[in-house]
């Protein structure tokens, strides 16, 4: 054993004792060095969920129609069940009305990107049989292409081509996530939802903090992990009520409620992928491994990252056409300074560093796209309006409206 292994931070082998809450029943769960019995664990979990809506509970719930993102995996499965309890308590406690007017459960069937068999019916059955008070909304990922002239087969093919040309697994995972987020936001807005509830756990958020930083997404990180995000999308607030729950807590909750039998199988790029396959997978492996030996890892990362403030330079005007996050101005200069462009003095610029379309894409999306086949066409064109057209012609979705576009072009004209 090395010194590190026997250091004070490493988890001591817990001895089964009594529950810290009721101090009578034997403990069956240990979380962050603390032992609970099953009943007290469940009580603490539902209490934590309710308090996640926090001080803003009333402003965030009453009078609002909310959309819950439901992939059918362990986190969103727990989220759905906890939402049911939350709505139920709210409707039975007179004088304490803390519930949403209506809940829409949105499942995005992403199987077209992987040639998998559809998950839409499974998700619909879970919602219709167990949560009849909620409205189910199924969304096919290929419907990112809204062109009505395209058949469903055409759309699937177009999507497959987009992913095929997207480059590394990291770029593909990022693209998949942007498309899903894009579809959720569009669906929420279309159905009149003013709240979008996501199932990010503390473990997932800790993984995001590290992997997003590694991918150059640090600038917009607070928006990607916050529990109550206003102003990112018009008339839509993003809520993450599971952000203080560990993946382990969620798994135990799912098991205790008998929810593991009705999970929708994950079929994305990194399912069963080796740990070195992408930045996300490698980070997941790193964080989860560290957290097993040092059970404060996830909470420490989440607590530290939650103190991050958005840069004051963020003006909300310039948004990335792909991920919709604010664009940090000057990233082109910064990227050129930190990048070894060429070891040969005769070459004064390397491909891809000359004209970067920083008017339409954030730094991280530029990096992702630089692996794709359409990059050179995009990078060579100096005008943001034609860049945007080119970007769209490659099959990438964009949340930008006509107004955003005009704004973008105006910025460009003023800059030069």
């Amino acid at each position, binding site marked *: 054993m090395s010194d590190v292994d026997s250091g004070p931070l490493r988890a001591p082998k817990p001895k089964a004792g009594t529950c810290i809450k009721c101090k009578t029943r034997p403990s*069956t*769960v240990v979380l962050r060095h603390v032992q609970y019995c099953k009943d007290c664990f469940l009580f603490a979990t539902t209490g934590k969920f309710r308090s996640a809506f926090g001080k803003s509970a009333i402003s965030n719930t009453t009078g609002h129609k909310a959309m819950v993102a439901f992939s059918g*995996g362990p986190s969103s499965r727990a989220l759905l069940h906890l939402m049911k309890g939350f709505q139920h308590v709210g409707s039975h406690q007179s004088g304490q009305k803390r519930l949403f007017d209506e809940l829409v459960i949105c499942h995005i069937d992403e199987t077209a990107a992987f040639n998998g068999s559809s998950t839409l019916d499974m998700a619909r059955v879970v919602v219709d049989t167990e949560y009849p008070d909620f409205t189910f909304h199924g969304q096919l990922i290929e419907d990112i292409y809204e062109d009505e002239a395209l058949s469903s087969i055409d759309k699937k093919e177009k999507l497959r081509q987009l992913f095929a040309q997207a480059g590394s697994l990291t770029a593909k995972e990022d693209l998949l996530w942007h498309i899903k987020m894009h579809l959720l936001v569009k669906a929420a807005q279309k159905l009149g939802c003013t709240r979008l509830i996501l199932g990010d756990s503390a473990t997932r958020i800790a993984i995001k903090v590290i992997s997003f930083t590694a991918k150059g997404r640090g600038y917009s990180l607070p928006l990607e992990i916050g529990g109550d995000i206003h102003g990112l999308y018009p008339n839509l607030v993003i809520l993450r009520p599971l952000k203080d729950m560990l993946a382990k807590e969620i798994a135990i909750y799912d098991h205790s409620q008998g929810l593991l039998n009705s999970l*929708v199988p994950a079929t994305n790029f990194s*399912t069963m992928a080796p740990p070195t396959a992408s930045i996300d997978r490698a980070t997941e492996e790193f964080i*989860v491994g560290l957290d097993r030996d040092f059970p404060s890892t996830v909470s420490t990362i989440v607590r530290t990252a939650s103190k991050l403030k958005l840069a004051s330079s963020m003006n909300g005007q310039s948004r990335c056409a792909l991920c919709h996050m604010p664009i940090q101005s000057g990233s082109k200069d910064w990227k050129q300074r930190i990048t070894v462009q060429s070891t040969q003095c005769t070459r004064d610029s390397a491909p891809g560093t000359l004209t970067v379309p920083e008017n339409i894409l954030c730094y991280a999306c530029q990096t992702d796209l630089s692996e794709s086949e359409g990059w050179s066409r995009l990078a060579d064109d100096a005008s943001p309006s034609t860049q945007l057209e080119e970007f769209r012609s490659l099959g990438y979705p964009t949340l930008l409206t006509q107004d955003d576009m005009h704004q973008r072009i105006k910025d460009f004209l003023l800059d030069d």
Partner: protein
Amino acid sequence: MATLHIDVEFGGGMELLFKNVREHKIDMPEGSNLKDLITYIRDNLMTAKQDLFVMNDTVRPGILVLINEADWELCDGIEYKLEDGDRIIFISTLHGG
């Protein structure tokens, strides 16, 4: 030598590693511990991707183990001595949201 009848269950997506079969009945020789069971599962129930289940002679981080409904961290973990009729559940806590 007596045989220990162990009920093994996979959940949270882990069953994908086991031909989508969630419940298994496994016989282990008397005196076996959890580590022996994990090794047995790796060598007899898996044909591929063993490293997604086992790493460094224990389960991969991110897999929760319940021994008769109790967190394995409260039951000696990998050194737990199996008893006849034990129910061991392996749950993947990651992948999918």
